């Protein structure tokens, strides 16, 4: 599996949000998209599965242009965990995960035994099997996030897109969800693209980072090549140093202060 994003340009009401964004991703990698508010992270994610249709540019999965696929076909290639997962209706956890099979089913087609097995497997991988009977509006935020990931897995996608998967979660749930994502990438060889606000978590879990600034890629590549003091100063307007933490085996962003050029007053 190989995802190629080529020359994506996107504008909302003729204001450029993304210009000339290109990158590619290899199977089993976790790629983090970071950047300040308004830098185009979520737009980028939505352009990948064509929820938003870029003015220019192509997205290829294994050399297949997503432009040529229907929405249902795209849903079988790309699974998404959106940002807002607040669900107010008492669907059971099992039913929510089963919705992941809907792109593979005809209108009045009943779920086959195979569909049910796929759902069970997705629920086992995400450790939500024991919640099967519970109502989705009654489970915790971390559990709900795992259920939505299970639903995305039930789509049997080649790529998993996550938009701020740790937003509104307690610290332990943040780690739990991202541990799961890392496990899936490793064990299932799943390709993951994840938008993140949290630089430390992005550094800790991603194999590669893409730093967006005002709709353009400022830096892309290995964590230590992207999270440099200069980039952080220029894009995030913070003075920081980045150190490898031996104890947890990951890079950490240590913020000293707001940059001189980043102060609002």
């Amino acid at each position, binding site marked *: 599996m190989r995802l190629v994003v080529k020359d994506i340009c996107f504008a909302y009401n003729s204001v450029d949000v993304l210009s000339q964004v290109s990158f590619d991703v290899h199977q089993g990698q976790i790629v983090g998209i970071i950047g300040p508010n308004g830098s185009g992270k979520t737009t980028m994610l939505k352009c990948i*599965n064509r*929820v938003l249709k870029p003015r220019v540019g192509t997205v290829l999965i294994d050399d297949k242009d997503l432009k040529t696929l*229907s*929405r*249902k*076909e*795209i*849903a*079988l290639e*790309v*699974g*998404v965990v*959106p940002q*807002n*997962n607040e*669900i*107010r*209706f*008492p*669907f*059971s956890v*099992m*039913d*929510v995960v*089963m*919705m*992941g099979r*809907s*792109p593979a*089913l005809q*209108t*009045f087609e*009943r*779920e086959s*035994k195979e569909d*049910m*097995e796929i*759902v*069970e497997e997705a*629920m*086992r991988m995400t450790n939500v*099997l*024991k919640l*099967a*009977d519970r109502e989705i*509006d009654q489970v915790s935020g971390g559990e709900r996030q795992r259920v939505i990931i299970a639903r995305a897995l039930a*789509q049997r996608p080649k790529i998993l897109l996550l938009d701020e998967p740790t937003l509104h979660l307690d610290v332990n749930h943040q780690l739990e969800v991202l541990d799961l994502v890392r496990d899936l990438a490793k064990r299932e060889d799943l390709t993951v693209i994840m938008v993140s606000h949290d630089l430390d978590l992005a550094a800790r879990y991603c194999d590669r980072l893409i730093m967006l600034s005002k709709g353009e890629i400022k830096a892309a590549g290995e964590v230590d090549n992207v999270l440099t003091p200069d980039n952080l100063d220029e894009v995030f307007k913070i003075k920081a140093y980045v150190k490898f933490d031996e104890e947890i085996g990951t890079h950490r962003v240590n913020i000293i202060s707001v940059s001189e050029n980043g102060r609002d007053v």
Partner: protein
Amino acid sequence: MPEPDITQLYTAKLSKWTLIIILLVVALFLSIVITLCIGTVNIPFTEVLDILFGGDGTGNNRTIIMQIRLPRVLMAGLVGAALALAGAAMQGLFKNPMASPYILGLSSGGAFGASLAIVLGVSFATGLFAVPAMAFVFCFLTLFIVYNISKVKGRTPVETLLLSGIAVGAFFSALVSFMKYLSGDQLSSIVFWMMGGLWRADWTQVLVIIPFIIAGSLMIFVLSRDLNTMMIGEDHAVNLGVNTQAVTKVVLVAASLMTAAAVSVSGIIGFVGLIVPHILRIFVGPDHRILLPTTLLVGAIFMIYMDTLARTIMAPEELPVGIITALLGAPFFLYLLRRRRRLTGW
């Protein structure tokens, strides 16, 4: 705790759904037969069954059953099913418990069209089709206006849709009141019809509305699964391959088809489209694949009994059934809302 077996759990759920639907179909059939027994002359259950399956019955009982009561009972069932299903689909689409044909102004629009035909004799069609044709035209017109006003950059945000529905509905309600004012010696007939009644039922009316209700129901049933994902969230639905814009349009058209059918033969009957789906959400949950068929069946059963009450409670006088559904429906609805709020999800 042993891990649940999804295949077993899910298969059991599907079987339960099938069982519920079979039971409700039986209940509907029994309700039809039971209410056919009731009237100025009470006819025994077994005799009604015999007549339904081709028997002659005693005296002119066959005529009473086949020509008077059966079309009335069937029409009540059709109207109840149409209103309840239209309500369920709209509530699901708008994720809003108040969404119903009334909020989008469809009922008022349809009622105005129908009253134009009744009072002024203005219609595109003639004879028996004059009133329903005008109701259909104005239901669609209302839908068209509401939908286009509320469309922002190719999308229809729920807020603008509901608000423009209220505005357009108010406009047509005012026009209906104006028609009442103009109607002179037809006033009582208009007023009675506006309160919602099925006393004009006959076979012709039944046959006129059947195709519209079948078409509308099928359009909605096809979208059950899409409506489920849209309730989770529009972005979720899109990511699961649903064309949410198309679903929205089809549901609106289908709901207006069914509303127009109901309004054109029975005036404005309230609360059915609101209460029936709510009660079923409590019992069968939010999944449209079971919610929609059960709402259709229970809507029919509910209306059949309400109308039987309407035609017998003050016999030989008739009470408009809309008064009964409102009097019984509103307090029951409030009680349910208070007590089971959590389970309904809103």
